[in-house]
């Protein structure tokens, strides 16, 4: 039996998470067009703060509610559908790489930018990782909403 409250919370966390990640992508990509060091530092700081204050908390909330929802819909040893298993794999990988590692990398990039070093592989990796993170979330949305084979 599905709880409507849990589904509502799950959706809210998901909307905020995806909104936060899109913001990080937009802000990170904007650093490529920025010619002023002060602006690049500002954009890197905004990306880091949004990752820390919006993306990570909503991701953790989403994952906890997802676990409770799945437990209610597929109790005990009931087999879970492939779309759910694949969603878990993608979500957990995204949480580790796109959530935790990217936020730590962004902190490093912000510190470097404040010291006057706005370039480097760290900045390029932080910018490049964020769209991949978003793509993983889009794949999960497709699996969750379309439930292919489910």
């Amino acid at each position, binding site marked *: 039996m599905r709880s*409507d409250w849990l*589904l*509502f919370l799950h*959706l*809210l966390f*998901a*909307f*905020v998470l*995806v*909104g*936060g990640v*899109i*913001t990080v992508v*937009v*802000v990170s990509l*904007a650093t490529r067009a*920025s010619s*002023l060091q*002060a*602006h690049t530092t*500002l*954009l890197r700081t*905004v990306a880091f*703060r*949004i990752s820390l204050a*919006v993306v990570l908390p909503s991701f953790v909330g989403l994952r906890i509610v997802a676990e409770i929802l799945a437990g209610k819909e597929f109790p005990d040893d009931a087999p879970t559908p492939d779309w759910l298993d694949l969603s878990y794999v993608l979500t957990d990988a995204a949480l580790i790489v796109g959530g935790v590692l990217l936020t730590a990398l962004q902190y490093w990039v912000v510190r470097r930018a404040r010291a006057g070093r706005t370039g480097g592989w760290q900045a390029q990796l932080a910018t490049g990782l964020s769209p991949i993170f978003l793509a993983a979330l889009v794949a999960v*949305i*497709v699996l*969750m*909403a*379309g*439930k*292919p084979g489910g």
Partner: protein
Amino acid sequence: MSTYQWLLLFHVVGAFLLLSGSVVAGLLHLAAVLRERPSEIRLLLSLVRPVVPLVGIGSLLTLGLGLWLVHEVGYGYGDAWIVAALVLWAVAGALGSAGGRPLGEAARLAARLEAEGDEPSAELRRAITDARVLFLNYASLAAVVAIVVLMVWKPGA
């Protein structure tokens, strides 16, 4: 996948574009409010612009595919929760549009002030923290969240 699954998939994708796009606009606006220099405020508000079409597309997708879903599933177009969702959709669009325009003007003001020396300005601060604008944008977001409530609980369905 069945027709229903495809329709639901793109309906949900539309909802993400609409709601997550609104979150993006809200976060960038908040980031702009926390800055003082017109150049920084202009930079952050200008990043909202590429997101606006996504919100528009999401808005149209949710409506079009939502109406198609009503037909596909067999709900009635006159069901109270569907009528309420349609009214809220129109209200959210009107409020969001009215709340977004002043922020576009604030971005143009920030660009002008940037060109004139980039000094902090009380006029610009008032423009980006205007209570009426904040109310319109938050009310628009609240209306969209209320639609999500209707879609999840489907009262009376």
